[in-house]
């Protein structure tokens, strides 16, 4: 490995940026934004450089590993490292932050709440996001998992819409319920490790190596699972999301739903399955049922929404159903699919919320669908991006989400045909609400709120363009991601001890020399 | 007479004191009830000392008396202050702090 502590550097730079921002004079309006953008871009560049050094064929479970004792008395260390799944999610975080900074350039009106505070919070969040995806000490993971709530809480509560206080508190209390349950389970795990190893530990590898009694597993699993299910969110732990999404600024919503919520599903892959294999197997039918209900229910509720942001929230819930489904069918297709879907969903969420944000900003901030009509006529570029976002959300083949969704369904189908078929129905409803939204907003005669609307400006297009580019790139050439994700998925499934079902008829080898 | 009877008497006195605290309204009387409880305890100490055949209990009783005296000083100071500002020694009168 290289000598540079990559992951720590990635975490420190945004934090440094946040500190620099706070030291800036109060009366500067533009400077904080430029500084924030600079730091986030620097992080992105370094992430790319790090990603290029990642060795997909390495046999080590984690790369860029660092480990220092933190609280040795409790077996806690500062230990970071990424596998393929962690790497892509770190990359997703590093990509989305500069995008939302650019997109949220004017989210905070000068003279109101602190501008530098807004961008500093986003940068702090970036530090925490990168940390949470790269922690290999479960305690460190938990700490970051919880601390992440604070910047989001302030981002919603200070910079959000009319009902922001309610939404922020609801979000935080919901998350704390999960967090505390997870804490209890985490401590339980620690106690088990102390009993088995003599000295308690939070080291991921050591915990995976434990031989936890299946009954204990079942209890501890629930603690972790509910936390992740609230975070993700799965049905029926989701009702904080619509409120949080509605009251957030688009930039916050993108980070919240696009990245933070992935911690839930990431946690399922990284922690639930390897540490509690028996319990995962035991609860799989339940989780699959919740996921499938979530897929259909989320889509149906989204279909009937009158508010754009709430619609996106429910659609995300539906998509998180797919992601959880892919994880809990225990096939390499499903799990890789889920990982890809996480990426794709991050991107599609970004395009949805950001375009909707641009739209709303032009019409006084209303997120009611009925406010808008005929946008395509006055702002075709905006409408075009909006359509792209809708298509990306409905998993059009050729776009990133398609491969994820298809693999998830394939993995499900291979395990249980009925569940696969029911889940597949979701994609029809998804198309229905996505296109219904586009139809209402972009087509038809222009509504008064839309009349005279300006089209997207250069900054806004610059923010969206990389998202669009990546969405298409991942849909057409996912090889780069698959190369790094596949080994991690294989390794996880190996730990769980389940392999893919073989085909009914052994495939015929393509003969001859190729 | 068996020691048990003294113990029982002590318990009765203690209970009476407790009931006094609960039912009397005048702060002074309430306070006297508390003193009754302390003295009931003293009786118990002495009786137990007899029962156990050592002097500890008797010595303790002296200590308790001293403490009770100190308590009186503090207690009366507080009650008098309250009485002066409220013109009432009722313990139910000061009722601003609640819920």
């Amino acid at each position, binding site marked *: 490995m290289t000598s540079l502590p990559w992951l720590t550097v990635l975490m420190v730079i945004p934090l440094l940026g946040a500190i620099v921002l706070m030291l800036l004079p109060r009366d500067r309006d533009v400077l904080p934004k430029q500084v924030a953008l600079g730091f986030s871009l620097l992080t992105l560049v370094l992430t790319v450089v790090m990603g290029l050094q990642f060795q997909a064929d390495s046999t080590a479970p984690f790369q860029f590993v660092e480990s220092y004792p933190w*609280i*040795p*008395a*409790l077996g806690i260390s500062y230990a970071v490292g990424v596998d393929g799944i962690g790497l892509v999610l770190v990359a997703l975080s590093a990509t989305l932050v500069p995008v939302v900074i650019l997109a949220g350039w004017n989210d905070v009106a000068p003279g109101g709440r602190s501008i530098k505070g807004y961008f500093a919070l986003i940068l702090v969040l970036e530090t925490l996001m990168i940390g949470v995806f790269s922690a290999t000490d479960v305690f460190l993971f938990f*700490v970051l998992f919880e*601390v992440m709530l*604070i910047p989001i809480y302030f981002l919603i*509560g*200070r910079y959000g819409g009319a009902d922001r*206080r309610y939404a*922020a*508190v609801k979000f*935080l*209390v919901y998350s*704390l319920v999960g967090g*505390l*349950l997870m*804490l*209890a389970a985490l*401590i*339980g795990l*620690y*106690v088990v490790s*102390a009993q088995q190893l003599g000295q308690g530990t939070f080291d991921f590898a050591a915990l995976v190596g434990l031989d936890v009694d299946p009954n204990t597993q079942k209890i501890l699993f629930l603690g972790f699972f509910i936390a992740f299910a609230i975070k993700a969110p799965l049905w029926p732990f989701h009702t904080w999301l619509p409120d949080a999404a509605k009251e957030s600024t688009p930039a916050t919503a993108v980070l919240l739903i696009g990245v933070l919520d992935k911690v839930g599903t990431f946690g399922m892959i990284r922690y639930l399955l390897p540490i509690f294999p028996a319990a995962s197997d035991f609860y799989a039918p339940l989780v699959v049922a919740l996921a499938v209900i979530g897929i259909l229910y989320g889509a149906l509720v989204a279909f009937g929404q009158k508010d754009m942001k709430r619609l996106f929230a429910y659609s995300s819930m539906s998509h998180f159903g797919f992601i959880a489904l892919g994880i809990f069918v225990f096939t390499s297709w499903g799990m890789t699919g889920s990982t890809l879907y996480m990426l794709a969903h991050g991107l599609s969420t970004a395009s949805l919320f950001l375009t909707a944000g641009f739209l709303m900003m032009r019409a006084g901030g209303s997120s009611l669908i009925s406010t808008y009509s005929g946008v395509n006529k006055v702002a075709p570029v905006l409408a075009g991006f909006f359509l792209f976002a809708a298509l990306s959300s409905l998993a059009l083949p050729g776009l990133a989400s398609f491969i994820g969704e298809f693999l998830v369904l394939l993995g499900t189908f291979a395990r249980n045909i009925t569940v696969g078929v029911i889940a597949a129905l979701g994609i029809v409803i998804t198309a229905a609400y996505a296109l219904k939204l586009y139809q209402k907003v972009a087509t038809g005669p222009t509504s008064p709120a839309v009349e005279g609307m300006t089209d997207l400006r250069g900054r806004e297009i610059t923010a969206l363009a990389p998202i669009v580019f990546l969405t298409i790139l991942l849909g057409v050439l996912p090889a780069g991601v698959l190369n790094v994700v596949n080994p991690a998925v294989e390794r996880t499934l190996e730990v769980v001890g389940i392999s893919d079902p073989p085909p009914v008829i052994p495939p015929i080898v393509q003969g001859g020399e190729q | 007479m068996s020691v048990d009877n003294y113990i029982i008497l*002590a318990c009765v006195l203690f209970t009476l*004191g407790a009931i006094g*605290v609960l039912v009397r309204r005048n*702060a002074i009387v309430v306070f006297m009830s*508390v003193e009754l*409880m*302390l003295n*009931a*305890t003293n009786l*118990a*100490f002495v*009786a*137990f000392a007899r029962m*156990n055949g*050592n*002097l*500890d*209990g008797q010595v*303790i009783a002296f*200590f308790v008396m001293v*403490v009770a005296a*100190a*308590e009186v000083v*503090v*207690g009366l*100071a*507080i009650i008098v*202050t*309250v009485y002066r*500002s409220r013109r009432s020694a009722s*313990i139910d009168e*000061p*009722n601003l*702090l*609640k*819920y």
Partner: protein
Amino acid sequence: MNPEVMTAPSIDYIALLPYIIVGAAGVIGVIVEAFVGRNGRRPIQLVLAFGSLIGAFGVLVVNRTTLGLQAEGAIAIDGPGILFMGLILLLAILVALLMSERQLDPAGDAFAPRASALPGSDDERELTTRGYFQTEIWPLFLFSVFGMMLFVTASNLLVLFIALEIMSLPLYLMAGMSRRRRLLSQEAALKYFILGAFSSAFLLFGIALLYGYSGSVEFSVIADALAAEPGQTALVVGGVALLSVGLLFKIGAVPFHAWVPDVYQGSPAPVTAFMAAAVKVTAFGALLRVMYVALGGVRWEWEPLLWIIAGLTMLFGSVVAIAQTDMKRMIAYSSIAQAGFILIGVSTATAEGLYASIFYLVAYGFTTIGIFAIIAMVRDAGGEMTRLDQWAGLGKRSPLVAVSFGIFMFALASFPLTSGFIAKFLVFESALAVDNLGLVIVGVIASVMAAFFYIRVVVIMFFREPVEGSPAAAVPSATTTLALAVSAAVTVILGVLPEPVINLIEQAGVFLR
């Protein structure tokens, strides 16, 4: 003990020096009050107070390896005892810093110029305008600290009782000394006194019953008796029950909590800080010692009791705190809830539980001092502004103060990277180590409810716009600032790097018997 031959008790004065320093300072303080002129008193009292507290702490640190039973077994100076005393002294120093504040209130300090003066009388007004200050509170304070030190190291039920009274009697008086809202303050004092005396009567009767059972008030003798012959139902049950009532009262555990909100609300903020931090620490110290040392033999009996009390306390404190509209009262209920969490650690009856409880008390004590320091700062001309809605927009008016308060709130809500988190972690861990899942689940539920009202304070401070007439926090003098800075620093450092403190506690070992 042979009653016929009186041998002089052997007393190691060096080992007892910390007690002597504080106690003597208190006595000197009384003499100063009697003989020194009005203007000269304050400096002398301050020197006495800080000098004795710091001196006692210094001696404690120097003596930290001199462990053993002292004064014929009446006092146990052991690892936990030293830790508790040290903690009490540190907290007392911070409280003394708050008490010596003279900048926040335009009329002077937080205490009535003459406690006996009629509220609202001409007499009182005159005293105020002439700038009289009373300094009687300082010797009272020192006596109380002296009582606390004795309380946590008492190894004998009689000493325990006397220490309890030495600690409590001055507190009753201090509670009634507020400069502002004096009627409330007096009411608090009266209620605290009546209920305190009532509870100490219970405690004493419990002592009597245990004495009757074992023939001694020594912890070790009682423990031996219980171990040898666990029968004698009535005396043991009655004794344990009444003794527990007395101790649980001081802790503020449900259903013996009723005095807590009223007294916390009515007392002047520095005194409340003293009660909420130091008294709580002391009472837990004594409870731990009594339960672990004297009653260790019947722990299967009091363990379920403490589970139930812990559960009730956590839930009740959290639920009722949600409905509060007054900051001090809310913190009072919160401190009830926190007592419940600490009781989880106590109820395990293991060394781990002991360590967890001590860590929790350290964390909680400092956080609480910080909270009351800020409560004292947020005020208008009429005194502290404790209505929650008056705190709206504090984040905008006084960002630094609000951020500190936010840190304290998050610490009480046991958020990671604050001391409260590690504390709760350790407590839950000790409970799970003895397979007490049920209590942990109740703890989690209570934590969620508790988090709700801590978060609400943050919402009010940061997410609400300041309303007309809600002033910024007053600028305090260096003493309060110092106390606040120390508490905030400890709260954060214990959350980020708790290692040294955990090691310190674990090295201190368990109680001597």
